[in-house]
């Protein structure tokens, strides 16, 4: 048995000259929860719709559990799907909504009732079988959607921004619930979202898409810790960027001159003095120290411009050297006021060759 459950092979889809999917290749492993993440218009929804069969790709193949389904009709693909706007059948009760896929498959009444009951228990909605969708809250409606998608044990569960119509608090709750249900059933799931927090919290692996292509594929840690491009770094979490030139390379460390500062950072492969690089540091990776701190490697003087209180952290805008604005998030227990001079320590700086962009 092959390890791949969903396979996109060089899938291309154009809309009136606009390339929505540009030779997209992506493999989702059996039992894995993969998130397709990207800004709107990046092609993640197109990829999903190619997989459901709602639209046909112009080129490329789509394989489901080893079988080429590119030409197979939507209703024969054995998929389960949760929709952004829930897409429940408004004229049916919760029981009939969840039972619909079974009814279509001509399952006997008794078997149907048992399976519906099971599915409703899974999403903790046993008491709501006779309710109509409009009588339920958004979160409950989405749980009905989840039960309907899972009731006939499809090979694959697709989730199309399932949480974006819910309010913030519920979103977090539902996030755990979806994760738990998917893990318990061991089902392969493809989760489409533009919300990076969701992607990081839920996924086994994240596929970041940009302009119809796969930009980076990796675990949430890999994506966050070692983004392979400015696009990924900007999309996942907050970041500060500095353009600079390599001054010297000494073994595993190189020195980069950027905005008049000399910054030490792990060296890049095949890098030589004079190369342009892009430095990148997360706001929570910078330490703010008192102005009296002695000079050291990667310690730079700066001035606090603006502060925002965020509860557990303070958000600072600082001016560094020659007009470089930096964003830093630090513990709110030691506060620095606007106009105060401080020193910043960068324990960790990452970089890319700049022409890579």
């Amino acid at each position, binding site marked *: 048995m092959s390890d791949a459950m969903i396979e996109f092979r060089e899938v291309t889809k154009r809309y009136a000259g606009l390339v929505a999917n540009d030779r997209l290749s992506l493999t989702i492993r059996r039992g894995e929860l993969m998130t397709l993440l990207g800004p709107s218009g990046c092609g993640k929804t197109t990829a999903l719709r190619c997989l459901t069969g709602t639209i046909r790709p112009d080129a490329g193949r789509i394989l489901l559990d080893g079988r080429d389904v590119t030409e197979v009709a939507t209703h024969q693909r054995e998929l*389960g799907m949760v929709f*952004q706007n829930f*897409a429940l*059948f408004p*004229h049916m009760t919760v029981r009939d909504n969840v039972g619909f896929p079974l*009814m279509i498959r001509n399952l006997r009444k008794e078997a149907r009732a048992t399976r519906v009951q099971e599915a409703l228990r899974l999403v903790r909605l046993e008491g709501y079988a006779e309710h109509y969708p409009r009588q339920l809250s958004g979160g409950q409606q989405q749980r009905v959607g989840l039960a309907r*998608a899972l009731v006939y044990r499809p090979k694959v569960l697709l989730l199309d921004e399932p949480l974006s119509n819910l309010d913030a608090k519920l979103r977090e709750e539902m996030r755990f619930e979806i994760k738990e249900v998917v893990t318990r059933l061991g089902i392969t799931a493809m989760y489409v979202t533009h919300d990076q927090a969701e992607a990081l919290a839920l996924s086994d692996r994240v596929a970041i898409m940009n302009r119809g292509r796969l930009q980076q594929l990796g675990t949430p840690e890999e994506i966050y810790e070692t983004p392979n491009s400015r696009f990924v770094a900007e999309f996942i979490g907050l970041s500060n960027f500095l353009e600079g030139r390599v001054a010297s390379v000494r073994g595993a460390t190189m020195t980069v001159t950027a905005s008049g500062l000399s910054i030490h950072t792990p060296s890049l492969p095949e890098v030589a003095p004079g190369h342009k690089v892009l430095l990148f540091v997360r706001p929570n990776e910078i330490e703010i120290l008192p102005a009296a701190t002695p000079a050291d490697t990667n310690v730079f003087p700066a001035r606090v411009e603006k502060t925002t209180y965020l509860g557990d952290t303070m958000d600072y805008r600082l001016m560094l050297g020659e007009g470089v604005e930096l964003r830093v998030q630090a513990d709110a227990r030691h506060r620095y006021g606007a106009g105060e001079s401080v020193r910043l320590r960068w324990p960790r700086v990452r970089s890319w060759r700049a022409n890579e962009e």
Partner: protein
Amino acid sequence: MTGFWRRHSIHGITGLLLLPAILCFFGLFFYPMLLTIVLSFRPEGQAVGWTLENYTRFLASPDGRWVILLTFILAVGSTALSVLLSVPLALTLREKIRGHRFYRLMVIVPLVVPGLIGALGLLLFWGTRGWFNLFLTQFVPFLPSPLRVNYTIHGLILFYVWLYFPYTCVTTMSALESLDQSIEEAGAVVGANRWQVLRYIVLPLITPGILAGSVLTFMAAFGAFSVPLIAGGDYRPLAVEIYKEISIPIPARWSAASAIAIVMGILQVAFLAMYMRIVRRAGGNAGAVR
């Protein structure tokens, strides 16, 4: 009572501005209606006295009851056919086929063509020497004689359908338009084929729209006048019967005509009330379409 008047008091300039509207309403609606009611209880041709004879004569005679039955047959038949025609048509026009905009426009043509002109055109088209029969006699062998359409009851229903089905079709189309595409998509993804999506999802959800539209067709067909007048032949529904009472006998039988008009009005209102109850019940569950 005083509270009511204080809350809804019309004073000064507002009252003055409303006056023309109020006068029009009473002059053009209440007065003629009241007059019809009064007339229907007067002995024919007399300005005094009260009688039920105008009603009993109409309702007791076989002719009178036939007129009522005929009106219902025509209205129910044409409404049912309109629904049968509208649903597939609306479903077809929803697909973005070539020229769907043009076809959609064509659907409402009968609404903008005056009924009289439409009826004349239909008479010419369906006549024994019209295009329809010319076509039949040319291409269908062994046809004993031209098909009679004009001045028959099925012909009249056909004319009604042509004239009044747009009401049903337009509301069916708008019901389809407002249907959330993702609901149908959800049906397909969980395993329903096109036919099953149509049967279990689309049709139940647009039924309230279809019913609401068909009531318009029904009302129009029930009150139809000019079409049956010129294309009905011996088939005279209520509206034509009323007109006959005041146009053929000399002197005109105003009281008889009034009584039939009142009967017609009562039937119409009663039917509408009944229909609305059915529509509300059918639409109760599908009403909350997001």
